[in-house]
């Protein structure tokens, strides 16, 4: 670009110089001859064209002359030849017309052929289109059926959906109500448990209070009695002592009644019967020996066997007919006194000691700290 290269003034002046040179050259070389040569060329072309035309015309002339010569044989028969020439001309023109008509006929025939072929083509196209159309129609019918079926299945699935949704809702409601019930029950449960605890505590308190009260009363009674006793100062003389034993006379045994070897080993348990006449002794030799106690004598009545280990405790029953014994072999046994036979042995109890709190209801105390209560014995 001229702008891009920034031509300076010097260059513009150079350009002017060059332009002037070109003008000079043109003046020298072109202008004098331009018009001249162009006119010359035009004339030359015109001349050659004219020559060509002349040639054609001479040829035509020759032709005509020749024709004339041929026709010119009957120049004496002027008129006839004239007529014949006229007739000939007519014939010539008619022949020309004939050829024209033939040509046109040929053209028309060609057109007809073209048109029939076009028609056949269009008919073929039409048939094709019709078949396509019928195919499309059958397709449409098939598609419509499909559509109907799909609609039916769709409505069915929607119904099923709806049913499921309703069930789901119902289940949810039931679930919610059950949850609430559960909550309520839970709270009730908690409340009831609390109340129970409260009652139990209350009961315990009451029991405690009763016990305390009872104890207090007893204590008070005892105190009262003691006080009374203490307050009652009775003058007690020595001789009155012998006759009136106010409460209790105690004496320490000073003399041994009798002494005998009862068992081979140690003696663990002794028991008088209710009458006081019989003594039962149990020892480490696993026997229970029955002694008759007279005034001064002790005679062996019998020995009860059957225990597998040392006897630890012996007891008569209320009637004095049965003997209950506990032994180290973890068993308790019952014998009858009369026939000195073992009646019952109770094993697996680990009992070592027993005693009878009340003669009527024997209580067994075992090592396991369980308490067996014999309500009846058979």
């Amino acid at each position, binding site marked *: 670009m001229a702008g891009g290269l920034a031509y300076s003034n010097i260059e513009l002046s150079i350009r002017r110089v060059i332009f002037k*040179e070109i003008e000079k050259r043109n003046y020298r070389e*072109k202008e*004098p001859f331009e018009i001249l*040569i162009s006119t010359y060329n035009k004339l030359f072309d015109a001349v050659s064209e004219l020559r060509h035309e002349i040639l054609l015309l001479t040829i035509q002339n020759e032709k005509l002359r020749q024709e004339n010569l041929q026709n010119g044989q009957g120049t004496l028969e002027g008129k006839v030849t004239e007529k014949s020439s006229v007739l000939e001309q007519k014939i010539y023109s008619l022949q020309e017309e004939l050829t024209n008509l033939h040509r046109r006929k040929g053209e028309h025939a060609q057109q007809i052929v073209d048109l029939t072929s076009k028609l056949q083509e269009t008919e073929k196209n039409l048939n094709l289109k019709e078949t396509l159309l019928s195919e499309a129609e059958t397709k449409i019918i098939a598609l419509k059926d499909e559509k109907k079926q799909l609609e039916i299945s769709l409505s069915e699935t929607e119904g099923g959906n709806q049913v499921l949704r309703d069930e789901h809702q119902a289940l949810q409601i039931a679930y919610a109500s059950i949850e609430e019930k559960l909550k309520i029950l839970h709270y009730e449960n908690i409340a009831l448990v609390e109340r129970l605890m409260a009652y139990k505590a209350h009961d315990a308190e009451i029991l405690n209070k009763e016990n305390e009260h009872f104890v207090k009363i007893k204590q008070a009674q005892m105190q009262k009695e003691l006080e009374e006793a203490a307050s009652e100062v009775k003058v007690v003389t020595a001789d009155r002592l012998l006759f009136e034993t106010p409460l209790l006379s105690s004496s320490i045994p000073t003399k041994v009644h009798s002494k005998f070897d009862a068992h081979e080993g140690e003696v663990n348990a002794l028991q008088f019967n209710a009458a006081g006449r019989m003594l039962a002794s149990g020892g480490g030799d696993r026997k229970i020996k029955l002694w008759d106690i007279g005034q001064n004598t002790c005679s062996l009545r019998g020995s009860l066997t059957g225990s597998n280990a040392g006897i630890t405790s012996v007891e008569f029953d209320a009637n004095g007919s049965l003997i209950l014994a506990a032994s180290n072999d973890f068993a308790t046994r019952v014998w009858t006194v009369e026939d000195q036979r073992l009646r019952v042995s109770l094993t697996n109890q680990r009992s070592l000691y027993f005693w009878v709190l009340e003669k009527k209801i024997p209580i067994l105390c075992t090592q396991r700290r369980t308490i067996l209560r014999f309500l009846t014995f058979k």
Partner: protein
Amino acid sequence: MAEDREILREIWEGRLPVCFTLATEEVSTPIAPDPFYLMVPRLTYFPLVTDKVRRHFVRCVVPEKHDNEMWLEFEKFPLKWHYPIGLIYDLLVTNSELPWQITVHFDKYPDNKLLKCPSKDVVESHLMHSLKEADALKHKNHIMALMQERDHKQLWLGLLHDRFDQFWSANRKLMEHSAEDGFRYIPFRLYAPQLTSKPFMQYLVKSIENEKRLTLEDLLQRANLNFESKGPFQVVIHGIDLPLETPLQWISEHLSYPDNFLHLCIRYSSP
């Protein structure tokens, strides 16, 4: 880009008056044919404008030679048809006798000096070849490669039918260059028959070197020939003398021949 349309137009419209005469020894009709005058454009090639000449003269030659190739001659020099007409004139014609007298021959084609030119397609391929060579020098052949077949045809037809607008609308693309640089190398041929036996000289000259725009003088310097030895000289192109300070880029854009080359002749103004 070549923006000076005035100059471009003037160069395109350059014409030379030529008088074609049939060689006397080849005339076979009793009357010699008239000489044929024609205004030939400076920028085209002889085979493109001599159809009428041939038609005019071939009638007067022995019938056996009617199919021979026609060749032209000036003062015993056979004219190379692949040179532009303006170049041949600048090179050969030292006297300015106008119209230019050229002799037409049909016989004895000088095969050792001239190439044969059987048809206009040969001229077309020659033009395309020169354009590609010039574009290779200017743009590393980018532009010619980018141009489509259509544009190539436009160049050829514009030249063939002497249509300035048609030719230059396509040639404009070949004159493009990036804003600050010029062409990579300037495509030119230097003709100096008095100094060297080579038909022409062609060497690499840039358009811009060391930030300075090169001029005609720099181009001549790089020829390594002593131009002054034969006396005062001028650099002639399209029949005009170029001042030596003209920048090469401008010359290449505006004064190139249709084949995009600058054909510069060294002419000595010897008495």
